């Protein structure tokens, strides 16, 4: 049986529903291209701010078998430098999404405009990093700020605007609705869950910043729940993320209501080849369960 995993997201075609999640190796043009080569349908850049930023002191990661913590603290070269890096993608067949972070609507808008000029197919607003003061989830857990920032960006660029939401809230639907009201074309759920680790034999928190974000397998049930709730409440597409390692994980997100999925932590073990693997597994599932179009899976878990 012929199956198609092509998807259309805000009017643009993606060869498959998988994307490289923001912050996982998306620091150079060559790495973004290697994700495409590995089979990703789209790639999201590392979150970029106005100025270069070192991020938090090491240790910036802590691993578990079922996931990991990171407290990188948004290290990035700043938009001036990153624009030059992105210019290397000009003329390449690549669906890339520019991720940006800032402290208010005008900063977000300015960065989004620069991403648009650099050739981004869409812009993703990082309203959800859980370990950076005055940025990310600190502003992204307030629906009003989410709406204001989304609106500011949506009125400044032509390209689609994606709001990336934080699960560190009692009501992610309120955040999703705020993004939708602000004019977002899609939302991503989820960013990492606020968490920490302690090194008992040294009697110390195991991350330089003490608090970090949990990702990987361990957060999949939380991500699925968020996507499920958002699907019930929103009209705009939802991009699912959190602990996706296999085609079956991706299928679960699609059934919860996602139109596409992002993969981050799983790249640690398998490298960029994981995208092709996930796609092949989605196709296998569709064949064995009798689905022709990947879009037919969307929201199946809902009544």
């Amino acid at each position: 049986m012929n199956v198609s995993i092509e998807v259309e997201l805000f009017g643009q075609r993606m060869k498959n529903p998988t994307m490289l999640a923001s912050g996982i190796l998306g620091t150079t043009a060559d790495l973004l291209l290697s994700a495409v080569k590995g089979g990703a349908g789209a790639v999201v850049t590392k979150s970029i701010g106005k100025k270069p930023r070192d991020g938090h002191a090491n240790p910036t990661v802590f691993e578990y078998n079922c996931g990991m913590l990171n407290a990188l603290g948004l290290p990035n070269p700043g938009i001036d430098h990153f624009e030059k890096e992105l210019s290397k993608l000009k003329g390449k067949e690549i669906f890339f999404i520019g991720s940006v972070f800032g402290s208010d609507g005008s900063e977000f808008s300015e960065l989004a405009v620069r991403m648009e000029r650099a050739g981004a197919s869409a812009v993703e607003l990082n309203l959800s990093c859980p370990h950076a003061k005055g940025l990310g989830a600190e502003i992204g857990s307030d629906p009003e700020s989410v709406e204001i920032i989304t609106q500011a960006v949506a009125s400044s660029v032509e390209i689609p605007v994606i709001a990336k939401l934080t699960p560190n809230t009692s009501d992610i639907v309120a955040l999703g609705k705020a993004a939708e009201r602000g004019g977002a074309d899609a939302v991503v759920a989820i960013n990492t869950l606020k968490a920490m680790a302690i090194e008992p034999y040294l009697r110390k928190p195991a991350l330089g910043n003490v608090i970090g974000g949990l990702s990987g397998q361990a957060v999949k049930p939380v991500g699925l729940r968020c996507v499920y709730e958002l699907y019930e409440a929103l009209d705009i597409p939802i991009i699912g993320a959190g602990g996706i390692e296999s085609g079956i994980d991706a299928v679960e997100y699609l059934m919860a209501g996602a139109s596409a999925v992002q993969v981050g932590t799983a790249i640690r073990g398998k490298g960029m080849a994981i995208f092709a693997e996930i796609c092949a597994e989605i196709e296998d599932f569709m064949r064995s369960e009798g689905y022709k179009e990947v879009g037919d899976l969307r929201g199946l878990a809902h009544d």
Partner: protein
Amino acid sequence: MTDNPGYLVSKVLSKEEVAHRCFKIGFDSILKFQPGQFVMIWLPDIDEIPMSISHSGPDFTGITVKIVGEATEALGSVSKGDRIRVRGPYGKGFEPSGERPLLVAGGIGAAPLLPLAKQLAGRKSKIRAIIGARTQNELVLTDEFSDLGAETEISTDDGSAGFHGTAAELCRETVGKLEFDSIYCCGPEPMIVTIVEIAQRNGIWGQASVEKMMKCGIGICGSCAISDRLVCRDGPIFDLAHLDELHSMNKIF
């Protein structure tokens, strides 16, 4: 911490000053490693930094640290019995090859080359080592290389011992006089650039250890990227031919 076996809180077993502000430190964890691989060492409240594994024994693993800043100062200040957290080993090590290998170390660059020399000595290779430093009291691990049977020459930038000049210059001279079938090197970037060129010109295969800012060490953050390669995962050891290619595309150094 049974869930992540690569993370070890280790006890410092030995510490020895091997050069000016340079210490060889052994800790009580047994790591299975390839020469050239590195570990991330955490100095609480300060930093977590990459260190090449420089030596090992049946009941310990060791590093050799040169003090250059706050974290290396803290590492150089540990005492016997202190605890440090080590994770790794990470990265891709050297591929031991050649019957007549040439090892070139600039400064603390001798650290990852020492276990390679041991491995090559085990393969009965006829090793020649060039150990360079700015000045005599900064020469690192020279006796250790000699003890492994390597024919060891030293160079100092100021001429205070051995050849007067850089390790790269001595390398050029040595390659002009003698035959080698592999070159391994670790040291400052200008030295590696010169050796890449020497190796290419003489058609000798080789590898170098490359440094980049390490954060995660596990190939997820992109901090150590060179083009589409990650120093922590695909390196820190790279073929000289590959470095030459990257260099000519302006992607490294």
